[in-house]
């Protein structure tokens, strides 16, 4: 596991490094000096060399839903997307709300994962939003954050106590922001298209009201709260103000929420059904603005596999969610860096490395000597077409089949070992 990655443009936002140089890996770790003895040489002269990318929001579906995805297939997809670490969500069957399930996931990852897997634990038992899960014991078992993702703690008192408790472990609380009463049976953004199509609407305010709640709780408890998969322009406005006041609140966006709008649902194609829903162009613009001005600090996929037959039903009855790991880097590069030019590639890498690593206190996302040899090599200008039938995921639920993208990871290295290359 000795490497010399030659002549790449090394971008490492963690130490503000951006230069063309050779990068060394010795015994699986980043090294300041070249390896002696046997080593592999990788020519990166046309590429960008970055700390291995981290996806903060992934559903690997194990335990319990291996018909959709397994830790093995999900991490293969992650590797193919350029990710060396994934943070997996606890809405499995059974939910990851106890130390044994966390230990099981860690064990399974040891056996079968191609990239690093970091589990999150549930905030509440059974993701029911009622009783606090054994957060401390799960920390000992290896969780790096808590979240009820897929669900949202509705009771503000329950949420307050969990946030307060998490502080003792310096644990970030991540939240899927959704007020159940206001969403009701909603299956798509409430607006012109839900009106025209007669589908139950899911208003922006159902997200914003929980984002506002989380800002208040982050301030009250002085604890990091991370708002997952933002969709509403109004949420961005709340967060911008809160962050300006120094409140420890952060947010992520997913590529589909800026690549697509609710109009797509006129096809009733269930690959456009996600939670939270696709919104209007106005929201897309405001989300991109939030990325540009630093309000939104993390990019993630919300990779949510579902078996073909599960999605091949009536729109309002279909499960929410789409795949993301293999398309997210290409989509974000295409839209944020090449298209709107909202950010440059250095900022994009920051949002995929040092920012998520700092949030959940992972010793990842850096190419400092001594760090794990997790490296992603990116061709930012490679024009390619995503083909669903070439995906490594167990599932095929993506609306991006056939999309032409610009920019792609060409090699993914975990602990000095190449786990995927184009």
């Amino acid at each position, binding site marked *: 596991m000795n490497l010399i990655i030659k002549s790449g443009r090394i971008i490492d936002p963690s130490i503000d490094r951006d230069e063309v140089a050779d990068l060394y890996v010795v015994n699986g770790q980043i090294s300041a000096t070249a390896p002696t003895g046997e080593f592999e040489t990788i020519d990166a002269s046309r590429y960008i060399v970055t700390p291995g990318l981290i996806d903060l929001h992934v559903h690997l579906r194990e335990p319990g839903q291996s018909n959709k995805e397994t830790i093995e297939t999900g991490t293969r997809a992650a590797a193919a997307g350029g990710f060396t670490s994934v943070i997996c969500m606890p809405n499995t069957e059974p939910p990851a709300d106890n130390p044994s399930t966390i230990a099981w996931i860690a064990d399974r990852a040891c056996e079968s994962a191609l990239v690093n897997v970091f589990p999150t634990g549930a905030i509440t038992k059974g993701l029911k939003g009622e009783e606090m899960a054994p957060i401390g014991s799960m920390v000992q078992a290896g969780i790096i954050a808590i979240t009820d993702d897929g669900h949202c703690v509705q009771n503000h008192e329950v949420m307050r106590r969990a946030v307060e408790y998490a502080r003792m472990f310096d644990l970030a609380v991540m939240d899927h922001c959704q007020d159940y009463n206001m969403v009701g049976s909603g299956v798509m953004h*409430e*607006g*012109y298209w839900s*009106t*025209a*199509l*007669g*589908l139950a609407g899911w208003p922006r305010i159902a997200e914003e009201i929980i984002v506002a709640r989380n800002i208040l709780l982050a301030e009250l408890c002085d604890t990091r709260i991370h708002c997952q998969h933002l969709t509403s322009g109004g949420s961005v406005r709340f967060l911008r103000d809160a962050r300006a006041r120094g409140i420890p609140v952060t947010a992520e966006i997913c590529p589909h929420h800026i690549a697509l709008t609710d109009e797509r649902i006129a096809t*009733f194609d269930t690959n456009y059904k996600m939670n939270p829903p696709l919104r209007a162009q106005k929201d897309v613009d405001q989300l991109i603005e939030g990325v540009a001005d630093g309000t939104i600090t993390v990019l993630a996929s919300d990779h949510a596999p579902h078996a073909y*037959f599960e999605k*091949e*039903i*009536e*729109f*309002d*009855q279909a499960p929410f969610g789409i795949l993301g790991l293999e398309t997210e880097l290409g989509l974000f590069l295409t839209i944020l860096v090449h298209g709107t030019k909202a950010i440059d590639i250095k900022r994009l890498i920051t949002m995929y490395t040092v920012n998520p690593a700092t949030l959940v206190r992972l010793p990842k996302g850096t190419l400092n000597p001594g760090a794990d040899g997790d490296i992603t090599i990116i061709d930012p200008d490679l024009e390619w077409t995503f083909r669903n039938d070439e995906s490594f995921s167990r599932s095929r639920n993506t609306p991006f089949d056939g999309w032409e993208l610009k920019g792609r990871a060409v090699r993914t290295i975990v602990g000095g070992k190449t786990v995927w290359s184009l």
Partner: protein
Amino acid sequence: MNTAKPETSLPDNGQWHRKDLVGIRELEPGEIKMILDTAAAFKTVGSRDIKKVPALRGKTLINFFVEPSTRTRISFELAAFRLSADVVNISATTSSLQKGETLKDTALNLQALHADIIVLRHSSAGAPKFLAERLVASVVNAGDGAHEHPTQALLDAFTIREQVGRIEGLRVAIVGDILFSRVARSNIWTLKKLGAEVTLVGPSTLVPRTFEEMGVEVVRRIDDVLESADVINLLRIQHERQRKEYFPNLNEYTRFFGLTKARAAKLKPNCLIMHPGPINRGIEIDGEIADGPQSVILDQVTNGLAVRMAVLYLCNTAARKV
């Protein structure tokens, strides 16, 4: 073409190329007119001694009603009989949906039994479109969730055209629970495409302003439309479990939006009073007004047969061409 005798020469299907009718939103005005013209030709069949033409002889039509319905199902059934098709009715309780079979699998099984036309009533918006894209058989939407009820809107348009002679330029008010109404949506698309001015009337919770983006006017007082309307279409108002947070009770609804005798007196004498049925006498419409001279509620029902004959005939002939 509307004077052709269906016994000997069936109506010309001209430029109709759709094997399915899933909604009005995607239709061109010319396509809507073609259905109405074809329906006019078929209407004469119903008043004959022998109420049958051979247009769909040897064809199999399946009335697949996942959501219960009496009037629409019977109307489609009679329309199919008059076209000489063989008809089978199935409902959610008699189908394998109850055993957990998916809609798609049930429909593929019906197609494997050589069904030519599937008429689908379903509680999920988009279900007919979903099937239409996956079946060789024709799919006709008999109402999908709050999305569309195209044949209802077509029979409403047919009735207006028959009574007034035109649709373009007319002022049509649609009153009631628009938010949850597939009839309202299909009517809005049909009437707008045919050049009418549409005004929606109802409580702010059931008629959100978002509807204005569909090219209609939204008002909150029924009295604002009484004197100007050429047609007033009263939707059935329901106060079921999911509506309780939308308005307090039926009494208050009638107080603000019901077509009472006093309100009906302000209507133009030739204003048509319509209702897709089933009516709640004394709630959205006064009982006597429903039976009065301006009411065309039963004409709508009769015309539904001709319109559905036209739709089945056109979709089937287009399917044959494929």
